[in-house]
């Protein structure tokens, strides 16, 4: 277990994980370890992608960083403060729609302000500004079920942005979208990221997506998730994803991932593979 008293990191780092582990249902029969010994430093304004086979604990790590769950081992800091509860500074965007179906788009976007008791005019103004940034100002008074999947995720991004987060946590936000919409959403996200200056932690199991977006890719092992390697993507932006360098990186990442996916499969089929 990592000790709290002597953390060796800069207090300006957006997210710092030291020896983070998570065992679900710890102490019961159904206990299973999802994460082990995660050490990670994320700079302000950095775009980091978590890549790994499904079930390796990527979402779990995001939940821990968001403060929605407690780590069983180690600790997490954000801008020098220990993460103990959720905070509007760290917004989480989910894979499935998480808009409140009973609220209009603008009410969804300004939900956080409503929680704080802001007046209606202020809420509407903030919502309008955030929706402007995601290009959905025209949909302000619509309800979520009148929007397409891509539009809904953009509203979710606007809702997160309205909180002026310093860290944007995104759990496979585009996984449910078709390929074309997904490519546009990636461009859109890069615009938003540049404008907001927030750090982005982005979970995916798509190698293409990782190469398109990341400054660094954190590759996870299969369960229990550990960091296998941290892979920098030092391609200039805007990126030419058809360049030879990009292709080479995709191949390297594919190989890194292949072993882990094989191991995950073997485990699911009941063969114990020694780690």
């Amino acid at each position, binding site marked *: 277990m990592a000790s709290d008293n002597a953390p060796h990191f800069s207090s300006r780092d957006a997210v710092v994980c030291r020896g983070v582990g998570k065992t679900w249902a710890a102490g019961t029969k159904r206990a299973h370890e999802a994460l082990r010994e995660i050490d990670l430093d994320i700079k302000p304004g950095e775009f980091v992608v978590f890549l790994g086979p499904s079930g390796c604990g990527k979402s779990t790590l995001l939940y821990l960083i*968001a*403060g*929605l769950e407690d780590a069983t081992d180690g600790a997490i800091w954000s801008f020098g403060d220990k993460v103990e509860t*959720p*905070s*509007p500074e*760290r*917004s*989480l965007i*989910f894979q*499935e729609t*998480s808009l*409140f*179906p*009973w609220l209009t788009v603008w009410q969804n976007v300004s*939900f*956080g302000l*409503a*929680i*704080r008791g802001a007046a209606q005019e202020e809420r509407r103004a903030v919502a309008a500004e955030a929706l402007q*940034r*995601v*290009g*959905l100002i*025209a*949909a302000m008074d619509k*309800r*979520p*079920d*009148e*929007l*397409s*999947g*891509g*539009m809904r995720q*953009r509203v979710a991004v606007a*809702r997160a942005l309205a*909180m002026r987060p310093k860290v944007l946590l995104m759990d496979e936000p585009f996984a449910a979208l078709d390929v074309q*919409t997904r490519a*546009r959403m990636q*461009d*859109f996200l890069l*615009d938003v990221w540049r404008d907001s200056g927030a750090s982005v932690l982005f979970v995916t199991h798509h190698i293409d997506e990782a190469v398109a977006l990341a400054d660094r890719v954190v590759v996870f092992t299969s369960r229990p998730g550990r960091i296998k390697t941290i892979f920098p993507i030092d391609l200039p932006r805007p990126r030419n994803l058809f360049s030879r360098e990009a292709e080479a990186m995709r191949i390297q990442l594919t190989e890194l991932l292949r072993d882990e996916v094989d191991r995950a499969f073997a485990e699911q089929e009941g063969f114990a593979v020694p780690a």
Partner: protein
Amino acid sequence: MAVVARDGETGVAAGASRPAAATRLLASRLFVSMAGLDWLAKVWWTCLSISLFAGLWELCWAMGWADEKLLPPPHIFLDNIAEQGKYFNTATRWQVGSSMTEGPSAFESVLITGAATTARVFAGLVLASVLAIGIGVLVRYYRFFDRLVLPTITLLSPVSPIAWLPVAIFLFGIGNAPAIFMVVVALFFHMVLATINQIDTVNTNLINVARTMGASKPQIYTRVIIPAILPGMLQVLRMNLFGAWMVVLVAESTGVGYGMGQVIMLARNTFNPSLVFFTIAVIGVLGFTFDWLLRLAQRRILYWLPDTAERLRGL
């Protein structure tokens, strides 16, 4: 920003993937004519359905298969409303000192009796819902409350409401209170368990979104959990509506109160099949109207739910 111009394309996607939303949009444009046509079609089918049933019955009578003294067909039992009506609203009619010719007309009597029964069902439903949702939320909100009351509620929920009838009489004697009590008792326990079940199945993401935005526990309950369980709760309410109607008739017919149930009992004791069927018809219309109003309210309150009735039509 580059995304501004993309609304057209995503709008099309919305139309394709969400036919319900598109239809609603269209419907709101052509509101008057569309809604009018829909409504007319519904009325037409309802009339047809009832006419078919009544027609078959009349046929049985015409062929001599149904004895009109036991199974009088609609044209007989609906014929003399004035005659039937005098059995209704017995409370005012049979007051000491008033003669049979005094008081409201036959038609008014039917209305008054029907309204009395409906009011009991309504009061019972409202009371039961408020109590059940309140208790259900408290059970999930406070752990100690959960441990304290949930066992008793679970234990009592399978008890038939009929078993509570004597209790209703002991506690409330005769009048509105025991009938309402019966409705509440019949619905309350199930609705508490349904509320808890609804709370447990609220999408975790919605709760987590609220948490990351800094919502407190009371805010999560009032702003996320309550609106999220409303659709399910109204569904439960509608399912229980018919249960409420059954119980209220039992309560009234055993002399706990007066009303439609009491008229049925009177018809039984005086061997009056016409009155039985007439009362059944009135109860049917009342129950149907009540359910229709509840559905209307449901659509009003739950404006955000898509209409799923057409989902299985294409099979």
